[in-house]
């Protein structure tokens, strides 16, 4: 298959899926008698500089979440627990940073490690239950999410402190606050310093998966567990390790925003990112580059959706629904082109073999 097709087909598929989803959304809006024009106008208005900053930040955060889910997917593990992992990790990182045990940015670095460790640990429970007791990680991570929620509540009540009606961890020392990269002179905030974690994770993910022995084992085990086992991969180890990695990356999700904005864990800490990350990973086909694309689309749509009911009187839920349709139609489109590509490739193989065989027969015919 030509290089052009290899790259072109997926892009075409995504575009087609996006268009299709847009059509469905339009039809729904027409059916309910909503303001279709307003909907599209709001969606396609170029975001303000301030909104662009938000989109960039959200892209970084969703990237982390998508990457966390994707690491599991790569190993055929369905880590629904990203949600619980990053919340718990955020709590511990916030609480740790608030102690100010280390000076300045060292404290930040240590808190990041704490976040990764807690995320990994929480995910690791599911991994260990899977290899040790055969408990499906789909179920165990759902349970662990719920348990994490209660646990967070308990810990906050027990050791947190109150600000107004909100309950938070202690504010971290100011020298541990991270700032913003100012992107526009007129916008006071910019990209969170720690949003750099996203490209770092992306690069690490890319190298790990595609350029290391470990990554090869991971992909092999994900593509065919039986083949991987025969090739010497210890699937149990891979399950636990990829769960730990997935959890460690999940632990990072809440970190950029917390260190740049709230400087504490509490009511401002955003929830629901773990679930969005799953969709982002699926949209990006679990590929480091694809996830970036998926994160951008979701961040953009999320940001614009927030304006919908103010500017067009349309419920932002229509955008949530459309996001789901995008995911479904993109995977359908990918499946269709995958079949198409396989067919094209097999045809090529067959043509070549035929040509060779014909050559053989011709030779034999000549010699006979």
């Amino acid at each position, binding site marked *: 298959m030509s290089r052009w097709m290899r790259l072109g087909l997926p892009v075409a598929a995504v575009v087609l899926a996006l268009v299709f989803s847009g059509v469905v959304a339009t039809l*729904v809006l027409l059916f*309910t008698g*909503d303001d279709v024009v307003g909907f599209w106008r709001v969606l396609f208005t170029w975001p303000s500089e301030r909104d662009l900053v938000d989109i960039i930040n959200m892209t970084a955060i969703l990237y982390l979440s998508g990457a966390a889910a994707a690491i599991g*997917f790569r190993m*055929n*593990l*369905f880590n629904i627990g990203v949600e619980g992992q990053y919340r718990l990790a955020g709590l511990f990182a916030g609480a740790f940073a608030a102690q100010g045990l280390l000076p300045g940015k060292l404290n930040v670095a240590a808190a990041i490690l704490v976040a990764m460790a807690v995320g990994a640990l929480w995910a690791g429970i599911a991994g260990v*239950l899977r290899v040790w*007791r*055969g*408990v*499906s*990680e*789909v*179920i*165990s991570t*759902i*349970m*662990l999410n*719920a*348990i994490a929620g*209660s*646990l967070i*509540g*308990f810990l906050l*009540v*027990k050791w947190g402190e109150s600000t107004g009606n909100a309950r938070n961890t202690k504010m971290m020392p100011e020298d541990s606050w991270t700032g913003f990269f100012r992107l526009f002179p007129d916008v006071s905030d910019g990209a969170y310093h720690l949003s750099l974690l996203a490209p770092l994770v992306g690069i690490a993910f890319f190298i790990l998966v595609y350029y290391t022995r470990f990554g090869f084992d991971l992909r092999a085990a*994900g*593509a*065919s*567990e039986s083949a991987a086992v025969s090739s010497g991969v210890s699937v149990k180890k891979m399950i636990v390790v990829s769960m730990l990695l997935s959890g460690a990356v999940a632990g990072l999700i809440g970190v950029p925003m917390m260190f740049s904005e709230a400087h504490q864990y509490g009511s401002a800490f955003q929830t629901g990112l773990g679930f969005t990350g*799953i*969709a982002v990973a*699926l949209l990006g086909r*679990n590929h480091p580059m694809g996830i970036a694309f998926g994160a951008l689309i979701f961040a953009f749509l999320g940001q614009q959706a927030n304006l919908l009911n103010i500017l067009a009187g349309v*419920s932002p*839920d*229509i*955008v*949530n*629904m*459309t*996001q*789901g*349709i995008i*995911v*479904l139609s993109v*995977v*359908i489109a990918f*499946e*269709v082109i995958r*079949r198409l590509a396989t067919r094209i490739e097999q045809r090529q193989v067959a043509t070549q073999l035929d040509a060779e065989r014909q050559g053989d027969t011709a030779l034999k015919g000549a010699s006979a």
Partner: protein
Amino acid sequence: MSAPVASTAPVTTPSSQWQRRLRVRNLTLIAIVGFALLSLVRVITGAQELTSAGTIQAALTSSIPIAMAGLGGLWSERAGIVNIGLEGMMILGTFGAGYFGYHYGSIAGILGAIVLGMIGGLLHGIATVYFGVDHIVSGVAINIIALGAAGFLAETYFTGLEGGGPTQSPPLPAPMTINVDFLDNPLASIEAKQWFFVSDFAGLLRVFVNDLPVLTILCLALFVLTFWVLWRTKFGLRLRSCGEEPAAAESLGVNVYNYKMIAVVISGGLSGLGGAFLAMVASSGFQVGQTGGRGYIGLAAMIFGNWRPGGLLLGSGLFGYTQALPLRREATVSIHALLLLVAILLLLVAAYQLWRKNTLQAVSGAVFGAAFLVWYLSTDVVPSDFTKMAPYVTTLLVLALASQRLRMPKADGLVYRRGSAG
């Protein structure tokens, strides 16, 4: 993501004997023994709420939506389609109940819920059966779509209605309930005696003579019906064959795609019915976010029940019970009493494993059992902060104990393409 089987089910393949052992009679036995143990714990600990009629009623109410989602999962997974979209189909069901129930009465609400759930199932079926999309991916997408759609439609159709709003339907008419008044009082007096087992059983019976919603009966009847259809009819045999060995089924003239589609659409309808129960019986109206993950728990209950209706019923009962108990009075005491139950169960398992000469399992069972016993003896209550974790911790514990005995349909989660026979 080509082989989701590995991710949704235990890897082990136990002997076929376990299959046959887990049949109806044994399940009944398990249920009775479990209930007796519970009664024993109640007597020992004095935590009366453990088996009060109220608790059992609440547990039943909590169980039914889970059970219906699980039954939906059972239908679709028996035909080989993993359905993690149950949650979404249930959400569609709650909306359907809200919309049709408000406008056209409770029967229409139930039917509407079923139909909307079926639409979710249809979508899942088209994606997985015809397009060969990974089952879990499709299920996740359907959950997102359903959540968004229900929110959007609710805002569109319920805003401005009396008692309704952008995130909720107006109050819905309550579906019928059944009362057998003359039995209630005698049963209540027996229950009040606090005798071992007898009183508990009377409490259990009271649930069925006291404001028993007709919908509950219907849902329970569906279990019997499911068992009969799937295991006793030609249709069921064909449907199950699609989940075990679709190529063989196709080679014998079974239209695999059709059966898978039918199964997954029925699956959606059942989840939708679970949604209707939530919106109309468990509360009296549609709410955004009302399902609260019950679809997922239904899936867990189904796995726990080894892909069989009886086991599923047991599993749903367990989850419903552990969900209901923390909302009862003196939950901190009741949940504390459960520690004793867990300890007893673990020690029993340990003894059984010892008898089977599985030393490692026996030892780990005994260690955990002893730990729970110590926990029970050294405390008086479980802090309320932890009672809400009970259903989830129980699920994990139970699955950790039971997962390796489970056997899912062989082709569950695998994409089947027409013409693969031979």
